[in-house]
Structures are given as structure tokens and as C-alpha cells.
């Protein structure tokens, strides 16, 4: 009898103890809804007609669902093409950046050679070079190489920028792998290239995932370089540049603009939701190192 009472009060106390946390959580959910409100509004605006967009205010649920906005954004505003451009540029850039950062990080971490210290020093010294500083020579040299106004030129410029932190992520990871592993592979007769591709790179899978996800999002969202690389070639625009141009060209079609925004943003958001872990790891790496 007494034991039962004790159990019940225990549980009540635990519930009571949890209650403030639930209140805090609900409060935070409220803030979070306000936080993501611009996205909710954009999603709802992309389904309203232009008339309702102006009169509807902050109301989220459209009176009438207008799917036609998406057709207009996709065809008339060329977002179908912009999306393909963005996918092509992003995927190829991710592959180039991941490969070049993995190989560079690997040899810098595992081998001492003439100039290795200097190499690392130059990389660290240029960790924070802003695009606004390098943009003029980048455009100039691309003109000389006949790479301006082309997706190839844009891809090369994007994969040649910064990404020092990606090299450093690989560097840090490869450095802490024990030497015995390498020696065992050498005894088995593996050469330089085999050791890297069949021993080291598979081990570094988590880093590769992090670098790939971070690069994907950086490239997808890039604006400054795509802007100056497509000045005279509207058909080569990426979604971020297309959006800016959309407003200039068809200033009245705001619902179409919202639809174009949804088309452009959904891929990164979906990627983020599925690969969140790697993304967070990549960002916290900056603090830990």
C-alpha cells in the first residue's frame, strides 16, 4: 500500500519535473515557426494567384491553388534550364573539389617532401580570401583562356576557389591514421596509388561525405561568380542569378517568382534534411581544429 503511493508520487514528480521543459519546447516551437515563416510564405505564395498575393497579407492558406505559377516559372522564366545548369555545375564542381582536396590533404598529411611546409603555410594564409578581392583577375584570366561565358569556365573558377578548410579536414583525418596500416599494405605489395584508393580513401568516407555535402551547398548557392560569368549568356544562368534577373525582367509576376524560388531552394533543403549530420560535422570542424 505505502509502496504504491511512493511509486505514484515518484512518477508525478518526474512528470512535474519534465513539465517546464515541455513548456520551453513549445515556446521554442513557436519561435521556430516564425523563424521559418519566410519559407512557408514563399511556398504558399507560389500557389496563389497574383491578385491574392497583393491582398492576402500574411495569410498562408491560398483561397485557390494555382499550379500554373510553376509552369510559368519552369517554361517562360526558363527555370527548367537554370535548374539543369545549376545541377551540372554543382555536381561536377563537387567531384573536382572532393578529389583535389582528398589527394592534396592526403600527401600533405602522410609525406614530408621539399616544400610541404610552405604549401601548407600558403593554404592557411589564404583561408579567408573573399571573392570580392579575387574577382577581377579571375574574370580577366578566364577571358584570356576563352572560358568566360561558359559553364566550363564557371566550374573551373568555382572549384579553384577557397576550399582550404576541406583540405584541412582531410589533412587532420589522414594524419591520425596509424602508420602500421600503411606498412601492412606495403608488405602486401600495394603501391602509392593503391594504398590511397583502396586503404586510405575508404577509411576517410565520413570526411568525404562532409566535404561533398558542404561543397554541394556552397556551389548551389553561389552567386557572385555565376553572375559575372553569365553577363552576356542568359541561357547559362544558374538559379540564383536567374532569380535576380527574373525580378528585373518580369517585375509583375510575383507569384511566378515565388514558384521559381521554391524550385531553386527545394533541392538543397531536401539534401540538408537527409544529410544533416555531415553538414553539421563540417561546420563544427572549424571550431574544433
Amino acid at each position: 500500500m505505502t509502496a504504491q503511493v511512493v511509486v505514484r508520487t515518484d512518477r508525478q514528480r518526474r512528470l512535474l519535473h519534465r513539465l517546464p521543459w515541455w513548456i520551453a519546447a513549445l515556446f521554442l516551437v513557436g519561435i521556430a515557426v516564425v523563424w521559418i515563416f519566410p519559407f512557408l510564405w514563399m511556398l504558399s505564395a507560389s500557389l496563389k494567384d497574383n491578385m491574392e498575393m497583393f491582398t492576402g497579407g500574411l495569410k498562408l492558406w491560398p483561397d485557390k491553388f494555382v499550379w500554373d505559377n510553376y509552369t510559368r516559372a519552369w517554361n517562360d522564366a526558363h527555370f527548367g534550364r537554370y535548374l539543369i545548369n545549376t545541377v551540372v555545375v554543382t555536381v561536377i564542381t563537387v567531384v573536382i573539389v572532393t578529389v583535389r582536396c582528398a589527394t592534396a590533404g592526403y600527401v600533405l598529411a602522410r609525406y614530408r617532401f621539399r616544400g610541404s611546409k610552405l604549401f601548407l603555410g600558403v593554404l592557411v594564409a589564404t583561408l579567408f580570401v573573399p571573392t570580392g578581392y579575387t574577382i577581377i583577375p579571375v574574370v580577366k584570366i578566364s577571358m584570356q583562356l576563352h572560358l568566360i561565358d561558359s559553364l566550363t569556365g564557371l566550374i573551373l573558377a568555382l572549384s579553384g576557389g577557397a576550399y582550404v578548410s576541406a583540405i584541412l579536414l582531410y589533412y587532420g583525418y589522414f594524419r591520425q591514421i596509424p602508420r602500421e596500416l600503411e606498412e601492412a599494405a606495403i608488405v602486401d605489395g600495394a603501391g602509392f596509388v593503391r594504398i590511397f584508393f583502396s586503404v586510405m580513401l575508404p577509411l576517410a568516407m565520413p570526411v568525404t561525405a562532409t566535404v561533398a555535402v558542404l561543397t554541394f551547398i556552397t556551389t548551389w548557392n553561389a552567386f557572385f561568380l555565376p553572375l559575372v560569368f553569365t553577363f552576356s549568356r542568359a541561357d547559362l544562368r544558374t538559379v540564383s542569378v536567374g532569380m535576380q534577373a527574373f525580378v528585373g525582367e518580369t517585375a509583375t509576376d510575383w507569384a511566378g517568382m515565388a514558384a521559381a524560388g521554391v524550385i531553386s531552394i527545394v533541392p538543397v533543403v531536401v539534401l540538408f534534411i537527409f544529410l544533416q549530420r555531415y553538414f553539421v560535422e563540417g561546420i563544427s570542424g572549424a571550431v574544433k581544429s
Partner: protein
Amino acid sequence: MTSRSVRLKTTWIWIFLLPTVVLYGVYTIYPIIASYWYSLVEWNGFDADQKFVGLSNYREVFADPLFWNSFKVTLFFMLLVVPARVLLTLLLAMILNSPKLPLIGLLRSAFFIPVVTTTAIIGVVMRFILDPASGPISTALTKLGFGGVDFLGDQHLALPTAAVLYVWKFFGVTMIYWLAALQTIPYELYEAARIDGAGTGQLFRHITVPMLKPFLIIITVLTIEETFHNFDLMYTLTGGGPYFHTEIIEIYIYRWAFAASIPQLGHASAAAVIFGLLVAVVGAVQLWGVYAGRRLRGDQR
């Protein structure tokens, strides 16, 4: 090892470095150096001839009140956003780090979502949301009886509005920095202190604050460096307006190099070099800060 296999290894090392040497060399290292050369010539970018003019571009830039305006805007913007980003995110990170909070994963994701979305698109959409004539905010304000507010068109409101949007957009990055820092504090430390009878305030003052101090330096300087990369948001949001009140240095450079009818690449490059030096000075402070932070952490062990 034989000399042949050593040579083979060296060859492979440089083959592995080759993509980075070429790409990084052409698109980062070369531009850093070339900017200095371009800043010494007069050149419109179309013609082949570049006329060497010495330091006259620098004299022009220094004499241009709009350059100093953009310099001031860049620094003022930094002062507006850095404290908000660093301190408010710490508060949220501490709440989102407590293991007893329900829905923690969902909340973290929600606060992080703006970070992954395309900044340039956010800028365009926000311009409509804040539009004084037809935007939803102004419609709602009018319904409530207030007049419409021209957030981005008013010369006193534009920069603070951009700062609020910037903090909102990149809040999640600093939050993740702090979460990573908080996770370095062993949970047992809190438990032990609580057994000794310490209250929540004491826990914060005597454990959290001293343990986070070295991170504060690192996170602040990382955040400062990030505020220099703000072209995307400013350009799409205000384009530097109204009347240059939000023209950060990156937009100033862009205006002289690409937006003018006759590009003045020498002038723009001189501004870019000064901008690069500013970033480098802050970067040097960063290295010093990281070093000092390490020492602080070392002292505690």
C-alpha cells in the same frame, strides 16, 4: 629504399597535388598577386593596353568619399551583426544543448534551415516580403492600423534591416559552432558540481563560462571573417541603396569593375587590394586569437 622508388614516390606526390596547384594557383593565388598589378594600371578591361599609372588609383580611391562610405558601412555592419550572432546564438545553443529538452532535433533543424538556402534568392524574396506597397508585412501593418514602413528604402532603416536578415540567415552557423564548443564540456563536471550543491547560476558562472572562454575568441573572429562575405545578400536585397547607405566594399568594387558603363578595373583593383588588406589584418588577429585561445585552454588542463 632505392633512389628510383624515392623518385617515383616524389612524382606521385606532385601528381596528387597537381589539381590543387593548378586550380588553386590560377583562381586564388594568381588573382591575389595580380590584383596588386592591376591596381597600378589604368585599364577598362576591353582594350589590350594597360597604362601604368603608379599609385594614382590609390590616390583616387582614398580621395573618393564613396569609398570611405563603403568602408564605414562594412565596419558598421560588422559591429551590428557580430555581437548579435555571437551572443544570441550562445543563448540558444545552451538551451538546445540540454539533454532534457523534447523535440531537440526538430528545433535544431528549424533554426538551421535558413543557412542552407540560397542567399541571393532569400534577398530577392525578402525584398518582396518587405515591399512597402504590396508586400505582406506592410499589408499586415496597414490592417493593424500602422502605416506601411519602407524597411529597405529608408536610409536609416535599410542597413539595420539588412543586419537583422543577415543575422537570421547565418544564425545557424554560429549556433553549430557553440554546440560543438559546449559538447567539449564533460557532463560529469556538471553532475559532480550539482552533488556538491551548486545551483544553476553557479554552474553557469563557474563551469560553462570559463570552459567556453577560449572558444569565444575563436568563434568571434570566425564570425567577423564571415561578415566580409556578404555580397550575395546585400546586392540582391538593396544593391547598395538607398543612396549608397548599404554599399559594402564588395559592392563598391563590383560597381566600378562590372556595373559601370566604362569599367575602371584599376580603380576597382585598388579598392580590392585595400579590402584584402583589411581582411588580412583581421585574419592575423584571428591567428593570434586562436593561439591565445589554445594557451587559455592549455592553462586549464
